[in-house]
């Protein structure tokens, strides 16, 4: 028990560092794709440092504790994975975390925040089936929802869940707030919702949101890695390579596709989830039964 609790803390160490580096690498790569110089890979650290130098202007008394709640539950979600606990709980905890962020935006009672919070809810609606189905895919592969059992399997999960992986890559675009599915908040300044869900969050508080986002990015790439990890220690290398590949793909997609309207996002994501993950599920269940 103690061992797994401590293992979980690895996430707290790795996530901010790796998350920031992934985020920096994305900006670097994206700039190069657009033939710009772009910032260095450690730019996000400077950004965060600056955020924390600033005063937090809050718009109401609820906002800060909702933002902290967001950060805490993203971190808890990562802890659950690294502690080898139930992956479904990690998904639920992530949903709760997103909910906190939405509420922080709703509490501002301002047009941009309000609209974006609802769009964020819609994004959650888009991603949740796939996240759950991914967890189910892992379960059918490893016979358990515990991450500690999954990583010790003979074969990596990608062997039996390729459809789940394809579906997951599609929702990864949403989770990382990448175009074409960055309807609630975008990393690019030209979005019609300005900064979307974080419009009314500033200064230090924005720093906390940024930190939560790094955690979330790292968590998402952990999910990518989980598809490739098995009892063979070398599989971790594969997982890291897969993560790097997925990252490159995301940056490429981000720079290639224009943002879509929400209806198209919903139909594309739900139908791809249904076809890829649902089809995969059907096959797995038939093989099992």
């Amino acid at each position: 028990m103690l061992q797994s609790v401590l293992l979980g803390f690895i996430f707290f160490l790795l996530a901010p560092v790796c998350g920031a580096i992934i985020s920096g690498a994305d900006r670097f790569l994206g700039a190069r794709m657009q033939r710009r110089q772009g910032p260095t890979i450690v730019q996000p650290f400077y950004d965060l440092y600056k955020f924390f130098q600033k005063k937090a202007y809050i718009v109401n008394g609820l906002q800060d504790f909702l933002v902290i709640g967001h950060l805490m539950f993203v971190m808890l979600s990562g802890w659950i994975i690294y502690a080898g606990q139930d992956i479904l709980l990690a998904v639920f905890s992530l949903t709760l975390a997103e909910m906190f962020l939405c509420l922080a935006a709703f509490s501002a009672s301002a047009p941009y925040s309000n609209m974006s919070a609802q769009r964020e809810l819609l994004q959650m609606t888009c991603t949740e089936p796939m996240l759950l189905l991914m967890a189910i895919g892992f379960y059918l592969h490893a016979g358990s929802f515990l991450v500690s059992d999954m990583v010790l399997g003979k074969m990596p999960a990608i062997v039996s869940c390729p459809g789940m992986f394809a579906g997951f890559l599609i929702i990864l675009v949403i989770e990382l707030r990448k175009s074409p599915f960055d309807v609630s908040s975008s990393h690019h300044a030209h979005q019609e919702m300005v900064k979307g869900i974080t419009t009314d969050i500033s200064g230090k508080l924005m720093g906390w949101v940024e930190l939560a986002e790094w955690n979330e990015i790292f968590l998402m790439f952990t999910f990518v890695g989980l598809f490739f990890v098995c009892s063979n220690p070398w599989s971790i290398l594969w997982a890291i390579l897969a993560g790097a590949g997925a990252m490159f793909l995301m940056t490429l997609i981000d720079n290639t596709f224009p943002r879509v309207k929400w209806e198209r996002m919903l139909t594309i994501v739900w139908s791809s989830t249904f076809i890829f993950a649902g089809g995969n599920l059907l096959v797995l269940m038939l093989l099992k039964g």
Partner: protein
Amino acid sequence: MQIIEFLIFFPFVIAAILYLLGNSERVYPVRKFIVKGAAFLIMAAVIYLAVRVLRGQMVRTYLEKADTANDFVMAGELFLMCLVTFYSFRFRKILAALLSWIGTIPILWLELSGRAAEGTDHFKFDNLTVLMCLVVGIVGGFITIYAIGYIKDYHLRHPKFPERSNWFLAMLFVFLGAMFGLLFSDNLGWIYFFWEITSVCSFLLIGYNREKESIENSFKALWMNLLGGDAFMAGILYASLALHVGTLSDLQQVDNRAVPGVMIVVSLLAFAALTKSAQLPFNGWLLGAMVAPTPTSALLHSATMVKAGVYLLIRLAPLMQGTLTGVMVTLIGGFTFFAASLMAIATSDGKRVLAHSTVSNLGLIVACAGVGRPESVWAGTMLILFHAVSKSLMFMTVGAVENASGSRNIEDMHGLIVKLPRLAVVMIIGICGMYLAPFGMLVAKWAALKSYIDSGAVWLVLFLVFGTASTSFYWGKWLGKIFAVIHKSQALKDTTHNGEWQALYPLAAMVIAMCFGFPLISNYIVQPVLNQMFHTEVEPVIGGSDIAVMLLMLILVATLPVAGGIISRNRRGITDQNTRSYMSGINAGDDRHFLNAYGDAQPLYMANWYMIDLIGELKIMKPCLAIAAGILVIMLTIIIGGAI
């Protein structure tokens, strides 16, 4: 066992007293005292019963010879039939009368001709009965307490409705009595009798204010439930004549491989249960029931009426496992869960959202029963418990908000946390209890998901994951509306009566307590039900480190608002750290206006998102009804045809 008789007859006695007291300013204090006393007595009685049974963990049966009681039941059935006939002729809705005749006359013939199969005992109770009694007694009790204050305000707000509150409160108690009768009865005929009482009662309660719409909706509820009752009757007829089975427990003993005919009975009873639990295509009556005063909706939706249906299904669950009937029930349940949650997104009337959500959650419970595995029954029973408490809380809060602010539309709840802070907090607890992670419903949903996967039902898993996603959407945006902080707003006058708070606070406390205590509930209340039902020691469904992680989450969630409260108390008022939100223009300072290009304050309104063009009721209700009706008809034909 006097306590059974007490629980069944006492509510009827109270109902009679309340009715006879009549309506006048003079009797209000007396009435308040009687209702509260009766509610607490009923609660005490069910808790006493629960403690006794849970200690002994045994099944008991009572009342072998019951000729007088049988005559009484027959007379009652005849009376109900006459009542329905009277009303349907008076309002020219002959369908209801026809269905009532079809349902009652064959049963009377069966009894009078002596062909009714004699079971052994008429009453039986085991842990499932006790669990349901706890739900009905405690939640129902609080609803009646809430009703006293509510109905007074209701008539103040609607002076044109005739004041018949004595009758209203009496009906609530009749309902409770009928519900207890249904739970304790083992004899199918008796269950049917109490089943019909609840149908007729709901009809009378829905039509309470005698408006045109109420009458329409009450007849809708009546014919749908009577149709279910007819299926129940057909089930009894077949069970008696072909299988010589007269009680529910004997029916459970029949081996469905040796006697395929038993599946006909199970399917017919399941059909009846589907109508009672307002599953598609019969969800119309529950949506229509919204016109009634809130305690009615709370009682019908959360604790009693709809739970009667799922209770029966859970009783039949072991029989349905792995059969076509099970497939039918799970298909309908899963589909209802998904479709109703979509429709809830496109609804802005608070009570109607709750109605859709009830239908949707019941779908989940129905699907759990249809799967029929121990884990799924565990999930189903847990869902019944959590849903009853959270949903009744939600209904009563919406009712109280409506009484205080004059609207139950979610749009008008913008900024509720500033306008009616106490009710807002209670409502937040209720909503969180309905769908958020460490709270009860989600625990059960999680177990349901596991059991669906293990049973190999792909479509069910898909319905569940997509339905869960749309469920979070509609609750999420409701929650967001409440959380919106609008500065410079006056708090509204909270007109909620003390009596209403006496129901709201305990229920809110129960939602929280049940979240912390769910391992205990699982161990001491639900696990024994499974052991009895499946005749083996069933392994704990959720255990070990999962519970630890869940509790960790709960503690985090619980500490956050406390921490937030302390932070905001330290920063009371406007400080240099405070600013106004961005209104796509300069905020005029009250979060309602922004300064336009001329420097004038321009009002602004922020609506929620309903996607009516995509998933509005008008758009998808009809196809959904058609699909569900198609599934039912085809499956029933296959099952009954196959068995014959």
